[in-house]
């Protein structure tokens, strides 16, 4: 789940964030911030990463639908700040657990790569 190779070539060119990573970022965002709508999640990810990530905001929605289908987040209809009906997302219990495993895997992979890079010739 770390690096979910998307099958569509075109979309990979446009987003420099692999979907798997985006999944993790979205879950983490929801864990820290609680219930949010799609726009706010995208904004939050942009803000936290500074300008390091070149993310099309729209890319968040395909990620969210998957997380929802897996049962890791739930949705609720609410009212946006512009007074429109909009979906609000929040983490489920299963999502919390998933986040934990994702973080763990991420760290393991990181550590592994780090060890390789640090290894003496």
């Amino acid at each position, binding site marked *: 789940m770390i690096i979910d190779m*998307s*099958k*569509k070539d*075109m*979309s990979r060119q*446009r*987003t420099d964030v692999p979907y798997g990573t985006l999944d993790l970022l979205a879950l983490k965002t929801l864990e820290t911030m609680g219930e949010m*709508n*799609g*726009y*706010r999640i*995208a*904004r939050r990810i942009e803000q936290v990463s500074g300008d390091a990530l070149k993310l*099309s*905001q*729209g*890319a968040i*929605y*395909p*990620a969210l*639908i*998957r997380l*929802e*289908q*897996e*049962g890791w987040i739930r949705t609720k209809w609410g009212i*946006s*700040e*512009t007074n*429109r*009906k*909009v*979906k609000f997302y929040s983490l489920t219990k*299963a999502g919390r657990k*998933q986040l934990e495993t994702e973080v763990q895997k991420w760290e393991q992979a990181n550590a592994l790569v780090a060890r390789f890079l640090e290894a003496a010739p």
Partner: protein
Amino acid sequence: MRWRGRIERVLALARGRRLDRELEAEVEAHLEMAERDARKAGLSAEEAQWAARRRFGGIEQMKEEHRDRRSVRWIETGARDFRIAVRTLGRAPSFVAVTALTLALGIGATAAVFSLIQGVLLTPPPYQDPEQLILIPSARTDGQQQESPRPWPAAQWMEWQREAKSVQSIAAYRWMFNFLILPDRVESFEAMAVTPEYFSVVGLEPALGRKFVASDTTPSAAPVLMIGYELWQRRFGGDPNILGQRVRVSREDAPLEIVGVMPPGVRFLPAPNVAQEPNYDVNALVDIWAPFSPGSDAAELKRPRWNVVGRLAPGVTPEQAQAELALLAERQAQADRDFAGFTPNVQSLTSEYNRDGERILLPLFGSAALVLLIACGNAAALLFLRGLGRQQEYAMRAALGVGRAGLFRQASTESLLLALAGGALGAGLAFGAVRAFQSIGGHAIPRLDAVTTGWPVLLFGLGLALIAATLAGLFPAWRASRLDPNEALKGAGPKSTVGRGERRLLRAVTMAQAALTLVLLAGAGLLIRTMINIANAPSGYDTSRILTMSVTSVQRSGADFHRRSLERVQALPGVQRAAYAWGVPLTGNNWPMRVIIEGQPVPVRASEATELPLRSVTPGYFEMLGLPLLEGRDFRSNDVDQAPPVAIVNQAFADRYFPNTEALGKKVWLRGPKEPHNTIVGVVANGRTDDLTRRATPEIYGSFWQYSAYSKHLLIRTEAEPLSMASAVQSALREVNPHAAVEHIKTFDQIRDDSLAGRTFAMRLLVGFSMVGCLLTLVGIYGVLSLSVASRRHEIAIRTAIGAERRDIRTLILSDGLRLIAGGVAAGLAGALAFSRVLRSFLYEVEPNDPATLIAVAMLFIGVALLACWAPTRRAIHVDPMKTLRCE
């Protein structure tokens, strides 16, 4: 957890539209919020709108991605391809109709024959593990054919029962024929007399009541029987209180108690020793079972009267059982000379059960498959031509970004759809065809009554449709996907011409079709030749205007009934002559007799006895059939029991046993050397009484008044149409004896036709198949040649312009067509030589590679195929060079 995702994705398929709407709303809200934030940061309204859009990224791209991620992609694209295919096909209804109908013909033929195979060969007999069951008929140790295979004495099979290790259990049975005496009628039935262990050996449990037990066969036991499910339904209306009821049976004094009802569909086990009985039908459903046991009387135990069935021990092959039983039989023969000369000949029940069916159905199935292949060839050509017309459309799609895989998928979805339509239509045709088969093939195919059309046939038809779609659709679809959009779009308008390579491929397909058609035609031709040969074969007797029926005086009234009934029937207006006979030609009926002939060595062992068929007839029988009496005299009405026994032999008998002397006055012993002999009083001409395709063999006739039979035929030569006399004859018989059973009323011609039913059926089917194949191939030839003319318009125009005559153009096109046809015919002849052999057992006086037949069908095909060339050729010679050349 992953499961939930999967299920959700499948559900998302159904909710696609709603999810799309929701996403739309979210996107709009997103953009609004982004715009608002941008305004807050100080951008103008227009700038803010742009910025929001830019930050969001490609909306359509995202939506596609969203759909991709939320649902099962291939189902969605499949559904879309399907919708597109339905729409495009809907615009070409005549193309759809022609292609689907073409495929339906092939699929229908194949599915129809398959349903016969399914019902007859693939439905095992209703026994438990039938593949473990073996039949144990006898064979002569010297390898000679037996006229009628000798059954086994109980003493022998009872020992096998005790000693054989390779066979876990053995039961014995006999075939019986009798009449059920019901309150309102008398009805004949076939029955099995079985030893009590029979049911556990074959593994049959009664549907109702109980099986036989050993105590049912003791002399003091109350007589009992079990009835078949079908008899229970037919005569007792499925009465649930049937158990304990008593029925009366002819020739049995006491009524018999019904103790059980068998499950449906139980048929006879072969009893080859009685195959010559007039009512023997091994494929019939068993109506009645009666318990029997060999008893303990020493002489009775040695009488050969049992057929034997056994169940192999687990893991034992029939060959192993054969070896062991043969050894046991040899030991028995050494211990007792009466058992010498016969050895068991173990056969697997299932292969015996399917032998006749396989013989006729497998070749027919092969022929039907050829029709299907031919149909696939046409469908492929049609799809290919249609693909030509749509090159521009495909190219446009390719240019718009539909990948090769996408184009391939779309084209193959169309052919799949067509094939499925053809499959459904074909299954419908098959249902109708099976009805037709059942009405015309009753005597040709065993157990045809068990054939049903249902889901298996429909599924098989759809399975064939899938194969057809692959065969016919693969190449056109591949071609669509390889199209170069640039090239295709450069040309103006839909193309109706093709390059040489493609034309060559189409020609190859058509040639293959022609070849397959020729194979079918050769088969049909050989069978037609066979039927003509049989019609011209010298049967020796005349079957026309003869009414036959089997007549039985169920209550014993004997010779008196026969004499009086003959007198009555003969006195009827419209009746020329009447006779009783046991052993009417072509019914398979006769009396195999061990005969001792004057001047021939008396056999030492029973197995070496001369076996000849005896027939028993009343005076006038020969004259009625037109069998001339060559020497001596006919039977007389005073050749009765008390008079000296007489016999009439046929020419073949006289030639074989008395080649140099007069047969008249010689002696034959029919009932053993110690009994009185029969004197030969006449020699009658040969007749093909056994089978129209077999030359007459030696036969003996006895006087009906000396050899009376229980159930026999009454033959009546009428002045008018025989069947019109049936009711008059029946009432005359009833007047003599109200209890007389009159059954199987048929003309002699019908008996003749029934004896040829297998060949007739195979011939009709093959003629039908080859006609369909011919038609399809002609359409194919026409199509290829038309395409060729269209593609060469320019060339033809130039030829005409520089002075070619019409004759030259005609020669050009016709020779093109002729090359195509000739190639197909040559390949077809080779195929016919290879495949006609499967028909060998149906052929009569024509070899499978008969040159005359092959040449005739080839000429016929070439002639008809040239007709298909006519229209394209006409079109070619009418090409207007001015118009054509200006156009291009």
